[in-house]
């Protein structure tokens, strides 16, 4: 737009027509399409984007004597931004936090690995079961999924405690003389996580394997490969997408898990979700809790971005 000649009559009419164009443009913005987009857009901005920005902001502020001092403050009519990295510095220097992050990743990886080892053959056998049985087998996997997660974790607690059902049974049978230490340690923690997340591994694997053309396997057998070789050289590579999807679905929630470590873990099984909870609820240290959350998000974004780059590679190779 040219504003220099605004004084002349010609440019007033030009200005007027510009205004009409702008108004029409604005009207268009309020039409069906934009309205339809903006409604969920605003909803998500309010509940996803803004909260995450606030977490970031608070993680960069200082914990005052009674409340959090704001990053953005007004002094003598001017906005001043005080960024405070103390929470992050503390995170990086305190061995406890570093250990907690590492052990969260360790437990999550271990859980993912066990789920894969148990779940892959399971999904494979399920996909090769008679067709009429498959919906039923699938339903049996989904069913615990619909019952309360919390109650299922509690159930393990009743089984595993030192005077719990398993120990009582073994003691009365005389298999053991004193209760096994299978509760409040890394064993019970990983068991609980495997138990909760196994369906997340099985479902995408099954979806992938059931689509897999079994003639590939026959062809491989025809070419003289034995059962194990067929499995390793043909089935596993063909179900790569399912393996990756399943592993992500297990790994991501496992890293940040709070309920399972709280109910089944011990004092020495460090998990980052629990630390965040304690920082917030027990210590009331909001900046610290936020900083823990920001670092945790980064930890999760890394494998996610790897996954999405793999997927886009896949999509390209399909073209």
């Amino acid at each position, binding site marked *: 737009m040219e504003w220099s000649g605004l004084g002349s009559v010609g440019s007033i009419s030009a200005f007027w027509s510009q205004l009409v164009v702008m108004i029409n443009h604005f009207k268009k913005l309020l039409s069906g399409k934009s309205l339809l987009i903006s409604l969920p857009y605003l909803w998500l901005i309010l509940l996803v984007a803004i909260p995450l920005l606030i977490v970031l902001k608070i993680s960069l502020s200082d914990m005052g004597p009674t409340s959090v001092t704001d990053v953005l403050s007004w002094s003598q009519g001017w906005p001043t931004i005080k960024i405070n990295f103390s929470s992050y510095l503390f995170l990086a220097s305190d061995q406890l936090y570093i250990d907690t992050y590492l052990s969260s990743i360790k437990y999550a990886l271990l859980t993912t690995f066990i789920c894969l080892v148990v779940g892959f053959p399971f999904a494979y056998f399920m996909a090769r079961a008679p067709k009429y049985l498959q919906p039923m087998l699938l339903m049996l996997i989904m069913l615990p999924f619909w019952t309360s997660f919390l*109650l299922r974790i509690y159930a393990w607690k009743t089984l595993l405690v030192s005077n719990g059902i398993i120990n009582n049974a073994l003691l009365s049978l005389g298999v053991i003389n004193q209760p096994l230490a299978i509760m409040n340690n890394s064993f019970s923690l990983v068991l609980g996580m495997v138990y909760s997340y196994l369906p997340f591994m099985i479902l995408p694997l099954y979806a992938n394997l059931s689509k897999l053309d079994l003639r590939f396997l026959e062809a491989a057998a025809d070419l003289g490969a034995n059962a194990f070789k067929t499995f390793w050289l043909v089935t596993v590579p063909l179900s790569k997408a399912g393996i990756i999807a399943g592993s992500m679905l297990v790994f991501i929630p496992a890293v940040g898990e709070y309920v399972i470590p709280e109910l089944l873990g011990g004092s020495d099984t460090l998990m980052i*979700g629990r630390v965040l909870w304690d920082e917030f609820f027990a210590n009331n240290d909001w900046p610290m809790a936020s900083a823990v959350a920001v670092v945790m998000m980064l930890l999760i974004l890394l494998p996610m971005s790897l996954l999405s780059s793999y997927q886009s590679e896949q999509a390209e190779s399909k073209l």
Partner: protein
Amino acid sequence: MSKIFARTWLIMVYLFLYFPIVTLVIYSFNDSPLVSIWSQASLRWYRALANDRDLIASVVLSFKIALMVGLLSVLFGTLTAFVLSKYKRFYGRTFFFSMATAPLVMPDVIVGLSLLLMLVSLQHWLGFPERGLLTILLGHALLGTAYAAVVVSSRLKEMDVRLDEAAMDLGCKPRQVFRLITFPLIMPSLISAFLLTFTLSFDDVVLASFLSGPGYSTLPMVIFSRARLGLNPSINAVAAVTIAVVSVAVIVSSIYHVRTQRKRDHEIAMRYSDGSQ
């Protein structure tokens, strides 16, 4: 040999999945106040359940929230899915997509923390909302929106775009297309999205703990606080009731699903026996 191995593997995993649930239900009929030591069968804990005011209040609250969460999630999830599948390019689509999927990949503790901090700031500026039912509802609806969007958009994706065009070709205005074609066709996915988000809300403890205020304890919050302290036979009874309700619902719906599927298969088979036409 390999068949036996396969069967054993399947059975072992199912045993692993169902063993805790089954013992939980069995021990809910245990008379002893010590959860893990069987004394004799009784309905003692079910009777106790009927008089447990805290628990009943929490069930009512959870039910209310879950119902509203289901409706809100389906509404916003459908809108989100519709926007994502229908408009392939608009300003900030990638950002929109990331926001819609973020709650699916973020641990509950982060979602809970971030929402709480947002609500606290909101309250600081506006004086509301007070933490309680509304705030839990918002948190669950956010998570539910993301899940519902996935369910609905997978249905929208497999829908033929030509159906929309055919409808318009036959005189349908765009608004009518949704009412007459899209909506009836995605209805089953809306129902499953509702059930999923309802269950999600009814089951959540982390978000609720962050977002709830004094006097607002959902059922999972009550169970969690009791389970944290140790074993409690009342939880077994709650578990048994929940499991019974869910099992009946799932079994009935899957029988219905299998039936309609069979009927459909039968009809498809029929049309080939009708002759070559």
